[in-house]
């Protein structure tokens, strides 16, 4: 799974109010080349939680993203390439996503997060 997916996922255990963003425990990450598409990045940007993406990138030891994005940066190919790399080319293959409130671990195996809840969590 990509950091884009991580940016969208939230813990929804019953009673949890601060289930976002999930912390990343990575035992294996992979880099896979994905075609660059500036238009997509500009469109997706407003939907992202930038702070969560920035923290996720930092927790994986990736190149640092700026704290805030100026509109002019979305026209800057250099920046967009870095944004593209972090958002779409880094895959969490093995590890877990951890709920920040309860500490519940959602395992990630073969790049697929298992977000199923137990019966006592719904």
């Amino acid at each position, binding site marked *: *799974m*990509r950091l*884009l*997916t991580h940016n*969208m*996922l*939230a*813990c*929804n255990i*019953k*009673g949890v109010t601060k*289930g*976002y963003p999930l912390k990343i425990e990575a035992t294996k990450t992979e880099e*896979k080349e*994905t*075609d*660059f*598409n500036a*238009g*997509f990045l*500009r*469109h*997706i940007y407003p*939907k992202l*939680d930038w702070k969560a993406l920035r923290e996720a990138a930092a927790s994986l030891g990736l190149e640092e993203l700026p704290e805030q994005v100026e509109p002019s940066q979305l026209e800057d190919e250099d920046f967009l390439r870095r944004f593209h790399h972090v958002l*779409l080319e880094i895959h969490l293959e093995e590890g877990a996503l951890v709920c920040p409130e309860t500490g519940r671990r959602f395992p990630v195996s*073969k*790049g*697929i*997060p*298992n*977000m*199923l*809840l137990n019966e*006592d969590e*719904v």
Partner: protein
Amino acid sequence: MEAGCSFGPYLSTCAGGLENVLLQELASRLYGVQVLSSHAGATVFSTSGRPEDLKALRAADNIYAYLIHKEGVPLDKEQGLAYLQAIAMEIDWGRALATFRQWNPGVAIIAWPSSNSSEGCSAALPRFRVTCERRTLKLPKHGYTSMEAAGWLGAGVGALLGWPVSMTHFDVELIATITDDEVLLSLSLLYSPRAKQNASATGPPDAANEMGREEEPLQAKAHHQSRQLYSHRPYRSDLVRTSLKPSTAYALCQLADIRPGHVVLDPLCGCGTIPLEAADFYGPSIAAFAGELLEDAVAKAGRNLAAGQQGGRPGPCDVIRWDATRLPWRDRTVDRVISDMPFGILCGSPKERNNVFPSVLKEIARVLVPGTGRAVLLCQGRKVRADLKRVPTRDFFLLEKTFSIDMEGILVDVHILQRTEVEVVVKPRLTPNRRRDRSRQRKGAANLTGLPAAFVDPME
């Protein structure tokens, strides 16, 4: 038609009801398209496009060389079979065989056997078979079986062209579809016997079951599907029992009006056909997400994703295991939800499905972007139609269009929903199991939710 620059006529098939999507694709992708007829999933057209261009069509289940369409086939056994036997005489074989040769240059078949020239005899006569699918919708039953119909059709063709019959090692396959008193005859183009051997060597798609049923009938299904145009999609490696055809998935994506930058989600994706088709077709201009509950299907979706990445250049797509009635997903982030909701006898019990449907709808409403979000749902049943018109779903969605499509003889509804601006309020989940609590309530027990009765969601 100008001779030499136009081939066909072709017959292209798709799920009945989705012809418009196919017609649109034909017009936008192929040169010199002339549509001769189109109804009930069968579209006949000619084009100057090359076979490669036709093979790239996504809305078509398959492409055949069109032979003939006749109405008024007698239902009675003797007359009906005699009628079918005589049909071979009326077919323009020259055109059809020219098209066949253009598609299968490796298969030697003689040009026009009736020329009776000595050079005609030296060329190999192709072995052939006839496959017949037959059904009656409005009229009484046919007096003959599909096997008999295929046999007599074949007898006519064999007598005219001098081709020997072989049911297993054939070079040419004729497909006959008899619906009521109409017969549509076409010639398989995509699959030469050589290609078939290759396909079985690499193994047909693993069509294992989804709901713990026995597997044997799927062997036949896999064989049938491997001859279809859509089975050549790179991501089509692992199937579940109720896999959607990629051509239908493509049509649903078109109906959803996907645009660049969109987030596309299928919360009940099975082996991932819809999001994988979207990622394959729209490429890096969109992001697709595939969610599924069942472990087996999730694993298959993961393998299909990997196969798609190996065999093509799809856009970003990820697979997630989840429960669609409780999506672990941020609000207002999705532009298009496209889903083939569970239906039919192969997919759980209707009662179970109907119970979860309202919660799935509510979750879809929550994650869609209000105002601009759209959902295209494939589902079946009166209960589902009623749910769409009930509060609060009625407030969240504008039902733009509902129509039926014919999927291998089963009528299924396509609902196109426009997300309204109405906010989805997620109530705090206070008790572990509200369903049980409410059933107690109905029996007159105390309201255990601790909320005023008005707060208890009547939908869930």
